[in-house]
Each structure stands twice: as structure tokens, then as C-alpha cells.
């Protein structure tokens, strides 16, 4: 998993509440056997006029001009500003995979669906909860100002606006540690590799038929 420390990036304002995982990545794409390659289909129904199918080349698909992700000023964005209860719906990890594959590393919203929130950390995305009023302010600033960027500082737990305003956010110590060091569950377990090996050595004596 990629390390997350400080991130400065273009911000996209997605001013909707209850964005569900099916909107983030529609169900026809769940048939894929990959965990990458979902970026072009992120928010597929909102982004394109036609119906997307797995494996489709998206370069020439008719785009919905009014959808934020299609506006050139937001190209290369890595921070998503969203409404409350972002990521509700199914527990599939395809939603964070799609966001990550598109290039988002941080999502800021007044609230998140539980499972989605956890799945973000597992995949190296930082979900940040800020007050509804603050999120609305940032949305407004972002829409008003082309090239609007935020600085997300995980060690300091702050978001800094272009005008130098700071907002603090909370994050669980353990999850913070994992993101800072790029540790997913597997990375964490592998920190105990010696203990796993010692266990195997002992078990080989006790129960050789298992090896």
C-alpha cells in the first residue's frame, strides 16, 4: 500500500449526499477479475451519456458536460469533496478501488458509510470527516476559484486552504500509523513474520502431517 503523509492536490466538489457504491462504480463492472482499471468507469452513469460495459474504451464515449469530473479545470484531481453519507450501499471494495485508480487519495465529507470508511484505509485512501458547514464552505471556495488546491497533512491532522486557513480532523491512531507507513492488514501481519515462522517450526514437531 502506498504511504500517505502529505498531499497537495486539485479538489473536485461533488455536492451530493448519499452517493452510493453503485453510483461510484456500477454493478456491471463488478464482474471484472481485476482490482485496478476501474478509474475510467468511476461514476460511470453520471459521467457518460451511454451505458458503460466492462472493457469498453472510454476515450470516445459521449460525456455529460455538466458532471464535475468532466470539467477540464478539475483534471488530475486527487482530493474529492463530497456530501454526507458518502459510500453507502454494498460492502464491495470495488468502490475504493475505482476512486484510487482514478487518482483520488483523500475524500472529505461530513460523514461516510461505515464499511466504505474502513475499506478506504485498507486501500491507502484517507477519508476525512469535517463539519457540514466547513465542507459547504470549501465546496463554495472550490467552485469559485479555478485551480483550487488543498493541503492534507496527516501527521498534523490538518487541511489547509489556499488562503492559509487550517482545519483539524480526527483519525484513529492505529489507522494513521498504517497509512503513514503504508501498512495494510497484510503488511501489519508480516511485521510478525518471525512469530509465524516460530509457530510453524513448533507445529511441524507436534503435527508433521500438516506440512
Amino acid at each position, binding site marked *: *500500500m502506498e504511504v500517505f503523509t502529505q498531499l497537495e492536490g486539485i479538489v473536485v466538489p461533488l455536492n451530493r449526499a448519499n452517493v452510493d457504491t453503485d453510483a461510484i462504480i456500477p454493478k456491471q463492472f463488478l*464482474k471484472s*477479475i*481485476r*482490482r*485496478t482499471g476501474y478509474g475510467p468507469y468511476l461514476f460511470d452513469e453520471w459521467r457518460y451519456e451511454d451505458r458503460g460495459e466492462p472493457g469498453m474504451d472510454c476515450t470516445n464515449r459521449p460525456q455529460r458536460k455538466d458532471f464535475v469530473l468532466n470539467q477540464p479545470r478539475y483534471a488530475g484531481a486527487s482530493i474529492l469533496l463530497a456530501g454526507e453519507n458518502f459510500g453507502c450501499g454494498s460492502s464491495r*471494495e470495488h468502490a475504493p478501488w475505482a476512486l484510487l485508480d482514478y487518482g483520488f487519495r483523500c475524500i472529505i465529507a461530513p460523514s461516510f458509510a461505515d464499511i466504505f470508511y474502513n475499506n478506504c484505509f*485498507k486501500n491507502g485512501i484517507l477519508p476525512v470527516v469535517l463539519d457540514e458547514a466547513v465542507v459547504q464552505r470549501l465546496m463554495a471556495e472550490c467552485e469559485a476559484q479555478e485551480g483550487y488546491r488543498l493541503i492534507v497533512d496527516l501527521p498534523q491532522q490538518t487541511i489547509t486552504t489556499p488562503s492559509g486557513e487550517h482545519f483539524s480532523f480526527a483519525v484513529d491512531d*492505529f489507522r494513521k500509523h498504517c497509512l503513514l507507513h503504508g501498512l*495494510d*492488514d*497484510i503488511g501489519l*501481519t*508480516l511485521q*510478525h*513474520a518471525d*512469530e*509465524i515462522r516460530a*509457530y*510453524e517450526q513448533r*507445529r511441524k514437531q*507436534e*503435527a*508433521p*502431517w*500438516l*506440512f
Partner: protein
Amino acid sequence: MAKTLFDKVWDQHVVRQNDDGSTLLYIDRHLVHEVTSPQAFEGLRLAGRRPWRTAATVATPDHNVPTIHREQGITDPVSRVQVEALDANCREFGIMEFGLGDIRQGVVHVVGPEQGLTLPGMTVVCGDSHTSTHGAFGAIAMGIGTSEVEHVLATQCLIQKKPKTMRIRIEGRFPNGVTGKDIALYIIGKIGTAGGTGHAIEFAGSAVRGLSMEGRMSLCNMAIEAGARCGMVAVDDTTIDYVRNRPFGPDAACWAQAEQAWRTLHSDADAVFDTEVQFDAADIAPQVSWGTSPEMVLPVTAEIPAPEEARNAVQAEGWRRALEYMGLKPHTKITDIQVDKVFIGSCTNGRIEDFRAAAAIVRGHKVADNIKLAMAVPGSGLVKQQAEQEGLDRIFIEAGFEWRDPGCSMCLAMNADRLEPGERCASTSNRNFEGRQGMGGRTHLVSPAMAAAAAIAGHFVDVRDWQEVQ
């Protein structure tokens, strides 16, 4: 201190106790199939990781393999891509696979025990909820998600919180015609689909000890439908006799040592369980599910219930919806319900004993005229071979059944084997949710003998009366 069977196996697999109360648990056997593994393998690849211990892992495609015309390959593109991805991943990472052309290929939960890949006292995981099946061997066997599949591949461990323990005791003798499947359905009908939530269930009592390994596997298979994390049965002579001489079992040099260790795999006499339930075997009749949840189940002698008889408003509403979906009227006798299709197979009932029981009913009869399709789908290539050596395939074919190649088939309808909207099926599988066997399809869960009898009669019949029906 006195220990339960679950505690004994759990304690033997603790690698470390994490600060947050979770346990790093060592996994002895990891079974892999095509649907839940591709992203796990890709995750390894993206992170530059290798499997921790390839010898602990065995793969076979089952969920969406064709059960007919195998020589034409897999025509559905999505299924083909998944099966080919499994082949490629197994090759790349050096994992043993029983592929489509291998006689050992089959439903992963039939293959594991058959090959001796599942052994008493093991921890067994698979990216599939019915992994609980393997608990019949006194193993801790749990279904896991794709992220966990990757975690087990990379570390041979799983991070787990210890569940509570529950013992379900069934004492006495079963009436003839009652099988492990009927017991499973009966228990779920009694304790509900949430009855085992958060628990590891041990099935115990004289009636359970009297079951064959096949019967115990059917029982543990459906522990998941009772909401449990896993189901288990203590090791005894039946277990040890089944395991003897299996291809991947202990070799002669350590058999005695293994057997000695396995003989300790039972709950101590004074072990304490968080929950205890007891049933009388004599009360159990052949079961038929009538609704869209496995707990909506009744003895074959019963009538379809009316919503007014429900315990409360929530249940009444659930029944109303189920009756509508199932196209059933309250007070209809179950034996008056006609079926359109019959499916004998799946990880619940796709073993040799299941086909013997079904063939004993079918022998010398013809499938009823109103049956559009009756399928017998062996759980593995070896089950198929064994059945053919015993001449069971002829019995099914002569009666008008289709005798197919091994796979999950109409249990979940990921391949072409499925119900059309409104079709009613007597099925030996384990789930009757809306659309499980095809959009709009209506599933009645039954034992193999009950499914076979329904195929011949065209409607449900009580197999205990089968002789008289003739």
C-alpha cells in the same frame, strides 16, 4: 480447565494475541476457487508479494464451470475469463489446481474432504461461505472475503475475533427417510437464520454421532444458514475411517501420531458453552422449505402457513412477501405443491451417498410428465466416476434425469443451469433466497431422496411413505 472442541482447535492455532483483542490464527488449509480469488492474486502481484506457503493452498474451479458439453469449452465470456484467470494465477504462483480436465475437479467443499485435504483439527478457509462444511471433521472451517483470501495467501494467517460457542445436541434415533439435510433444515426452522449469529456451533448428541461423514457434512454445510461462523462435529471412528487412505492424508509414518492427536478432538465432559440447545431426533420429519429464507421450512406433512399465524407483524410481512414470490396460498398441503425442475447436487448434497439415496428412490421409475428438467450433478469428478461404477448414472438417465459434469450448477445459477421466472424447483442446495437459482425462480430446499421422489411424483411426497405410493 475443561475445553470445548472449538477451544481445543482454536488454541492450537494461535500465533499471537493482538493488543486489540483479535487473534492471529494460523491456517492449515486454504481452498481457492475462481470467483473470489482473482483480485486477491492481483493484490499480491501489485504489492510484489509471494504466497507464504503454497503447499497449504489448493484450487479448483466450480462456481461457473459448464456441467454439459465441456469439450466445447466455456462459452460464457465472464465465466471463461474467471476460470482462465484461476489457471493462470495457479501457474504463476505455483499453486496446485484441479483444473477442468482433471477427474478431481469439483465443488471445492466436496473435493477437500474427498482428497484428504481436509483433516481433523485443521483450520480450513475458503473464499466461500459454505466452507463450514469441513467442520464435520472436527476442523475450524470458515468462509472468508477476498481481502482475507489475499491475507491468507500472503501470511498463512487470518486476523480473527474469537466467536462464542454453542452446542446443539440431538439425541435419539432418526425415523427412516430423515437425513443430515433434514436435520439442518429442522434446526434452522427452530433457531432461525440468526440463531447461531456470532457463534461456533458444535453439533453433538447420539443422533449426530450416528450420522455418516456425508450426513455430518450436509449438517455443517448449513451452519452458515443458521447464522453461525462455523459448524463442527467431534472426531470419532466414523471420522477416522473416512480419512484413512485419502490421497493427501498423513502417510504411514505419521498416521499413528495423527490418529492419537485426533482422538482428543471432542469437547471435555464438563466444558461450558455460551449457548446450549437440545432436540429430539424422533421429532424430525423430512423437511421442505416453502419460502425465501431457509428458516421458512416445515415438515413435508404440514400445510403452508398463513401470515395471520405469524409470531409478530414483521414475520407476517415477511411471510406475505415470501408467499407472493413463491406463488403459494396459505393452507396448501406441501404434498400438493407441483414442481417444474429438480436439482440434485451442490456442496450440501453432491456426494456419493446423496446419489445413492436419490437413485434408490428413482430406480425403475420415470420422471413425471410435468417435470421440465431433472438434473443430477455430481459434486466432483470422482463422485461421478464412483456413481457410474455403481451404475447410478444409468438409473438416473433411464428415469429421464440429466446426468451432468461436476460443478455448483443450479445451486447459484452462475452458468447456464438456472430456473426461468416462476419456475418451481425441488433442490438439494442450501439457499432459497429470491432469484438464487435464476431470476424469479422458486426454490424448495429438500434432501436428495425427497428431491428424487418429487421428480417421479411431479409433486412433493413424504419419502417415508414412498413404498406405499408405488
